[in-house]
């Protein structure tokens, strides 16, 4: 099992109530472990990205959190309740994998069915349809919906209970670029305030744009957890200057530069990339020839590949 890179919570995050908490959560199918000893924590009010390659165990984890799948071992609490208990599910909205509805019913009738299951009053249906911008097509049969509309109906169903926790599993799957952008905007809006969003995705850009914190799962195990910035590691600048020894000497003396390393004929400075102009001025004023100066931070993709051992997303 890979060791987990877990960033300590920031001061302001300590004491924030946990909405999702798992301890040693494991699901095995025979000898194959779909999820292995997963310790996950999602705090109230955050948009948490659950990132991992296809088949890493994201959906299995979400299904366990929703009570659809029973864990082989371990423990989980969702909003303080046992996963799948009616008390817990009353405050959880979920869209798991592809949106599945009754094809012969209209979007509105599908939501009526779901509203009856959850004991929600009918006026709420119009509200959520409006929120996902489906009011105009509410009376169309679900089978006539485009994939984007189906996804939006899935989000509408998840919102029916005005949930404290919204679980969205790959909500942009199969959408065109505009549909993806619209869905991301919607998730951002939904994540504002006290509502917690647990977003599973294999799209790094999506997670980077939307999420406050990220958990990376690989081969069933959580390999890292922290903010996007934390996972990307320390940011820095790549400097190519002549002579390089002199450039290194000057850089080491600069305030705010934590580390200087030689990297393939260039220097990698661990510092705030916004100090590029200032560093450039210092080097030039010292008579050095600067041929390249650019941010050299690790992208989330690089961090992800490093954490997952090069598994593609």
């Amino acid at each position, binding site marked *: 099992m890979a060791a987990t890179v877990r960033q300590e919570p920031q001061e302001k995050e300590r004491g924030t109530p946990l909405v999702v908490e798992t301890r040693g959560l494991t699901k095995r199918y025979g000898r194959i472990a779909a999820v292995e000893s997963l310790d996950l924590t999602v705090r109230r009010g955050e948009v948490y990205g659950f990132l991992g390659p296809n088949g890493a165990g994201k959906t299995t984890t979400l299904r366990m959190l929703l009570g*659809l799948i*029973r864990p082989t071992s371990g423990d989980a609490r969702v909003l303080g309740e046992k996963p799948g208990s*009616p008390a817990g599910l009353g405050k959880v909205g979920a869209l*798991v994998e592809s949106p599945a509805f*009754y094809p*012969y019913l209209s979007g509105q009738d599908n939501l009526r069915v779901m509203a009856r*299951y*959850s004991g929600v009053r009918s006026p709420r249906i119009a509200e959520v349809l409006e929120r996902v911008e489906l009011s105009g097509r509410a009376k169309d049969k679900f089978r006539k919906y485009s994939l984007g509309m189906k996804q939006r109906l899935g989000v509408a169903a998840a919102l029916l209970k005005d949930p404290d926790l919204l679980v969205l599993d790959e909500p942009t799957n199969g959408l065109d670029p505009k549909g993806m952008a619209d869905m991301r905007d919607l998730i951002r809006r939904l994540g504002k305030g006290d509502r917690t969003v647990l977003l599973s995705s294999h799209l790094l850009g999506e997670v980077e744009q939307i999420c406050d914190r990220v958990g990376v799962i690989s081969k069933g195990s959580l390999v890292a957890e922290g903010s996007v910035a934390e996972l990307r590691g320390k940011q820095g600048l790549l400097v190519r200057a002549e002579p390089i020894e002199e450039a290194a000497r000057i850089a080491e003396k600069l305030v705010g530069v934590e580390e200087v390393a030689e990297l393939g004929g260039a220097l990698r400075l661990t510092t705030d990339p916004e100090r590029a102009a200032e560093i450039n001025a210092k080097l030039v004023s010292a008579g050095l020839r600067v041929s390249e100066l650019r941010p050299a931070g690790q992208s989330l993709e690089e961090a992800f590949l490093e954490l997952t051992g090069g598994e593609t997303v």
Partner: protein
Amino acid sequence: MLASFGAELLKIRKRPATWILALVWFILIVLFGYLFTYSFAANPPDRPEDQPPQVQQQEEAFNEQILNGLLPENLLENLFANGVFSLGAAIVLILGAMAAGSEYSWGTMKTSLTQRPGRLGMLSGKALALALFIVLFVLLGLAAGAMSSYTVALLEDASINWPPLEELAKAAGVGVLTFGAWGFLGFALGMLFRGTALAIGLGLAWALAVENTIALLPIESDWWESFRRLTLGENTSSVGSIFGSPNPSFSIPETLVEPERAAITLGLYVAVFAVVSLVLLLRRDVT
């Protein structure tokens, strides 16, 4: 449970396949229960000129007997003792398989369960909605039979005497027990196979091929007879025999089980299939 019942009722009521099955059931009753039989009895084939008068009289009496069997006073005998109602077994089996299996085929089980109904509540709602539609299908069968027999009486200029209300109520009860057993067999199969295709395919193969083969196999032994007494088809036929004997011309095998015992057996089948469905839903992961 009531909330789930409301949701299930909406789904089953708005599903076109439900009403297609109802239409097929109505047509089956009219065609196989009345129209074909009436056409044969009212329009007998031309007799050979040299046919002896004794044979001719026998044929006329036979046709008259068949026509009498189609009149309103013999409504229940025709529908139940002659096995017309058994045709509906396949229809309600499909209805039951659809109610359970479609949730898996469409992947809607996960969508519904995450809305909070709980597995027990959801299954109870489904079972209640199915039971309600089984009652409706029974009433539809009785109505189709009544309408057809009334038409025959008008065509034959015969007097119209309906069975007593008590008998009609009993018939509704027998119909609900029969359809309940077959409908919940389909329901349990839908749960077991997590889909409709295999559930309907195997269910129909059992109902139409295996059950009939079992009834017609000329095996004479105690264990075979004991086995036959347990089959759904045998108990369906037996419980229907309280309304009279089958028309001899229909070649329906004699029943082995007393009607009261058959009624209890069918009731137990309903309970067993419902419990099996519940255990399957409670114990298995929804993937």
